[in-house]
């Protein structure tokens, strides 16, 4: 009887259009959009590109040293700058047309003219700062103690690497990938709608199917158990499709522990179904209200996890870290983060245990509320 119920639970689930649209098609579309939007950002930010700039030398300025510096900046396969020497009006016109990122004006000191803000403009300013500071030190040394000026110049020219950089992970450091983690978390939490249908299809006051099931001789534990297991399987299927699509079609790098990514996603799906099952079992509300409750909780959970605003998780971590530890979507997306960033499994274990605990609490509460429910009339 259990297997019979399970079979029809699975068959009927895959015929629900909502499920196909929101748990399979929608994540695919959203994932593709994420890929289109975020696919190149990391590369754009981390890959240096030569900055086009115009140089305007003011009248009466000896620019011999400056030109030497600029020549060194424009040498090589991928130089720091691509410089055009011109007059002020032409430079402004070039800036207006966005042919250059800024105008370096060589006067007594270097100054900069830009038309917008961005990393290139920031790099130009940094270069100008460095030039001005070096010039200032040399001029001061020549003014105060010409005898030691040579030593100062030698010291400034000497190489210096005071900062040694330590990478924190060997994993994929593209932080835009967290949107894909949150997308998987969203699919998992949307599983609450699947979970909601378990109680709807088993409660006589919510659907004709529920009424039919209530008056059938099948024990409630078997019917409910089959629905719950069936929903877990259906949701797991959706999770596998989602992860496979992201990994193999969109080529998202989840690290080298893909099996654990699948397992974490499935556990997340089970958590989503359990959450929906618990909400569905709350007897006081109508089906519409329960659906609204499911969607609201799902969206808030995903928002707090960073699906809409990527930085929010970091803000929560610094202000209310406990929220990240109990928010279902955050816990799910953290699993993928830990699998990618951490070299050990300590944090992953905690996250998986949290998921199991939350799933168990929601399922047990749902069963307690739903069991032994009888209807004198509907």
């Amino acid at each position, binding site marked *: 009887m259990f297997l019979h119920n399970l079979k029809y639970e699975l068959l009927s689930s895959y015929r629900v259009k909502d499920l196909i649209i929101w748990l399979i098609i929608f994540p695919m579309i959203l994932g593709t959009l994420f890929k289109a*939007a975020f696919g190149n950002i990391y590369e*754009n930010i981390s890959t240096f590109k030569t900055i086009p700039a115009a140089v305007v030398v003011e009248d009466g300025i000896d620019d011999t040293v400056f030109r030497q510096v600029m020549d060194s900046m424009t040498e090589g396969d991928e130089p720091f700058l691509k410089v055009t020497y011109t007059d002020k009006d032409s430079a402004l016109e070039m800036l207006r047309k966005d042919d250059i990122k800024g105008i370096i004006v060589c006067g007594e000191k270097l100054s900069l003219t830009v038309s917008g803000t961005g990393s290139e403009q920031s790099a130009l300013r940094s270069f100008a700062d460095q030039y001005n500071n070096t010039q200032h030190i040399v001029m001061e040394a020549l003014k105060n103690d010409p005898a030691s000026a040579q030593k100062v110049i030698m010291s400034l020219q000497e190489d*210096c690497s*005071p900062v040694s*950089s330590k990478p924190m992970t060997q994993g994929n450091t593209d932080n835009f990938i967290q949107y894909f983690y949150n997308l998987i978390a969203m699919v998992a939490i949307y599983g609450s709608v699947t979970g909601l249908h378990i109680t709807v299809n088993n409660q006589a006051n919510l659907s004709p199917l529920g009424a039919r099931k209530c008056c059938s001789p099948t024990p409630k534990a078997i019917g409910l158990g089959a629905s719950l297991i069936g929903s877990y399987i259906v949701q797991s299927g959706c999770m596998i499709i989602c992860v496979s699509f992201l990994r193999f079609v969109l080529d998202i790098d989840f690290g080298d522990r893909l099996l654990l990514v699948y397992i974490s996603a499935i556990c997340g799906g089970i958590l989503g179904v359990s959450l929906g099952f618990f909400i569905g079992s709350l007897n006081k509300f109508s089906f519409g209200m329960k659906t609204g409750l499911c969607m609201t909780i799902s969206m808030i959970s995903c928002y707090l996890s960073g699906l809409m605003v990527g*930085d929010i998780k*970091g803000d929560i971590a*610094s202000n209310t870290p406990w929220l990240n530890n109990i928010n279902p979507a955050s816990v799910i997306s953290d699993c993928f983060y830990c699998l990618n960033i951490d070299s050990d499994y300590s944090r992953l274990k905690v996250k998986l245990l949290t998921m199991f605990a939350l799933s168990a609490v929601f399922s047990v509460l749902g069963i307690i509320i739903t069991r032994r429910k009888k209807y004198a009339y509907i």
Partner: protein
Amino acid sequence: MLIFKTFFKVLRKHLPVALIFIVAFVMISLNMVKSSNKEKVFEDVKLDVCVFDQDDTPESRKLCEYMSSRYNMVTIENDQNTITDALYYERADFIMTIEKGYAEAIAEENCDGLFTSYHMHPSYAEALVQQFLQEYVKTVRAGIAGGMDIGNAIDLAEETLSQQTEVSYAEYDENADSDFSKGLANYFNYMAYILISVIMSALCPVLLAMDKKDIRYRTSCSGIVSSSYLLQILTAAALFITGIWLVFSIVGIFLSGGMYHGKALLALLNSYVFSITSAAITVFITSFSPSANVVNLMTQVVGLGMSFLCGIFIEQSLLSGGVLAAGRFLPAFWYIRANDMLSGTTAYDSGKFMMCIAIELGFAAAFSLLSLVVRKIKLGQTAVKSSRLSVAENKG
């Protein structure tokens, strides 16, 4: 005015969905306008830096003190996982340790390996602070080489590095950027997503309800002239769109802390034109008579699709060439391009701005024409079916 009244009666039922979007947008906007003031490009607003001072000497403390005047110092637990999370989620732009022996090494003009910085991925923030540290150390070393003691050399470095290059903005228009702050620009950018989502989610079901076969037939055989019917529907839809646009415009006044001036008025015009284009897209989609599920999916796909491909959620300058090329075929691309000009992200050119507005209007006209074509084809098909049915009935 029967049709006009009925339109709003049906609309009232779908307003809660629109209200959810509006409330969510206003809530997010509050956060967005606040956070958008965190401009990290120039040093006007400081980078978030965390320093672990393991040397703990007067020299290292002086460096920390000077860094706190340049950067926003944040406190983070000195633990591998916390540092990793802070860098990944950008709670700190730069985290470093001043190594033990810093003071001794710098006094001996030995400048290598004084600091350890932690990084997840290369960033301009990291490059900028590293460059600052290098300059600081080089200047101190130059001071010592010039005969100064360590204290005076540190003072020289602080004084020298405090002098920053003068940066001016090229003004191509007399209207000042202060009329259209970065925060307000972000608000208007995100408004494109919410306008299309609200208009589609509320207007689609109303138009579909009014366009149901039975209701359409009933209206067609009533005494209402078809031009009057169309006029009433258009007036009601225009009123609804204007209402939604007004709500967001008024919210914008509160968020920006004052009435719109100068370029902000042009942004208002841009947003209104985009509302019209959104309505035209809605009418086009409803002309295919989709089901409720498909309408919901289309709302998400069109709204999110434009947001990701046109630069609403991510700046256009960060999008790849391919995405931008695809985005050009969507109205939101031109909406954002116009806003970018107003906010100073790209150089302002009144001719180019008006061209963006004209392209948006062109999209509205194109979608309206396409809707008419689709409706005409559908009506033709219905007429053919009806005539075939009547012929069959006559034969029968």
